[in-house]
């Protein structure tokens, strides 16, 4: 078997995104390396979701470059779970099978892989339930299972626990940890500091479309270098 193509590192240089005269991402440069869990921190409206959409390939940059280590990453190689995941009007398992089908997984393998993916997130019992009537927490886990089933090298997770209760949030954090341990690179956004402390290896601190800090989690939480980040950590409202 051929050596799998390595997507990482991902080099982002001087990336800007403008729309309707507003600059949402402002000359961002960063490198995403394999192995660690990278957490993008920042207040509401900082541009976390936009930055991930750009990296995932859903938005086209206004300026700058997004360069993977391979020419054209396929969807199955780098997956994304959205802040509000969209479930198709079919069963939980069929949602995963759908993603596998689009990823080119042969028909006879899909059912087994979907079942395994559901089991990994503890949803085997609701495999046949219509996905859209599941609870918020179950839908979030299903969204993770759907992305994980593709066995991607990189997974972008946009606020994976926003609007979940603490119990459901912990379940999702455990799943993220498990995904990390299978070797998939985690890039996730959150504005939940506790979650960042629990999960992050690296922190990217984003404010008003700019990366203000890039540090290891230990460094960042011990001694943030910018006033914005300090205020954010101390829980002050970060009005500029």
């Amino acid at each position, binding site marked *: 078997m051929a050596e799998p193509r390595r997507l990482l590192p991902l080099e982002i240089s001087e990336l800007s995104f403008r729309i309707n005269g507003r600059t949402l991402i402002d000359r961002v440069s960063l490198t995403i390396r394999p192995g660690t869990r990278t957490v993008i921190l920042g207040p509401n409206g900082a541009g976390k979701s936009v930055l991930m959409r750009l990296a995932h390939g*859903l938005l086209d940059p206004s300026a700058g470059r997004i360069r993977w280590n391979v020419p054209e990453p396929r969807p199955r190689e780098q997956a994304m779970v959205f802040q509000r995941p*969209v479930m198709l*009007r*079919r069963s939980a398992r069929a949602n995963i099978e759908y993603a596998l089908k689009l990823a080119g997984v042969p028909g006879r393998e899909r059912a087994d892989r979907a079942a395994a993916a559901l089991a990994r997130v503890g949803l085997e019992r609701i495999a046949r339930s219509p*996905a859209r*009537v599941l609870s918020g927490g179950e839908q979030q886990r299903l969204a993770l299972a759907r992305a994980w089933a593709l066995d991607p090298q990189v997974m972008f997770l946009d606020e994976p626990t926003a609007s979940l209760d603490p119990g459901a949030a912990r379940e999702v954090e455990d799943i993220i940890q498990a995904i990390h341990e299978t070797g998939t690179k985690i890039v996730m956004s959150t504005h939940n500091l506790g979650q960042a402390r629990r999960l992050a290896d690296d922190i990217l601190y984003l404010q008003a479309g700019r990366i203000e800090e890039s540090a290891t989690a230990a460094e960042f939480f011990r001694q943030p270098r910018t006033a914005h980040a300090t205020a954010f950590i101390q829980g002050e409202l970060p009005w500029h």
Partner: protein
Amino acid sequence: MQEISQAIAAAAALVGSGDSKLVAIMLLSLRVSLCAVLLSALIGLPLGAALAIGRFAGRQTLTVILNAFMGLPPVVVGLFVYLMLSRAGPLGQFGLLFTPTAMVIAQVVLITPIIAALARQIVADAWQDYAEQLKSLGAGFTQSVRTLIWDTRFSLLTVLLAGFGRAVAEVGAVMIVGGNIDGVTRVMTTAIALETSRGDLPLALALGLILIALVLLLNTCAHLIRQTAQRRYG
């Protein structure tokens, strides 16, 4: 007043007895309109979906035209199809005028814009929700169209029911292209028009009652489909 109540009683008796002429007219109506709605679905649903998510030149224009065509007066559609099918018309050689096929064609012209326009709206709304997720999973244009049609299947089914209701209740177009020939192209609406003008109120009323019942039934179905789908699939 008495005349009316007598007519209603006679109509009810006619419906109850399963009068063969009545049944034949009813079946032809159903057959013509079912064919029309099936053909319109084959054209209208993909067209509506493509307009909803496609990014091609002329899309806006086509959408405006489609919406305008929703309100086409049936007699004008009838006249247009008549001209197409008449001996001197471009399709005259097929000899379709005054056949059930002609009526199907007229109804297709009438309801395809309705089905396409309503489908466009439904699919466009779903696309708002789904676009990023489908793109993220790697769905191309055709795949997206198929997925959206399948995922909005219950709403689209109610659109088809609405199209059927419109087709079966329409009189102007089928009168012109069908000719209301007894035993050949006489459907419920044209029969009602004729029998009323001839003064045979019981038959007209009996057909009217059936038509009303049919429309009620269609709307009940549409309502139940929507409700069940919402409860079962979210």
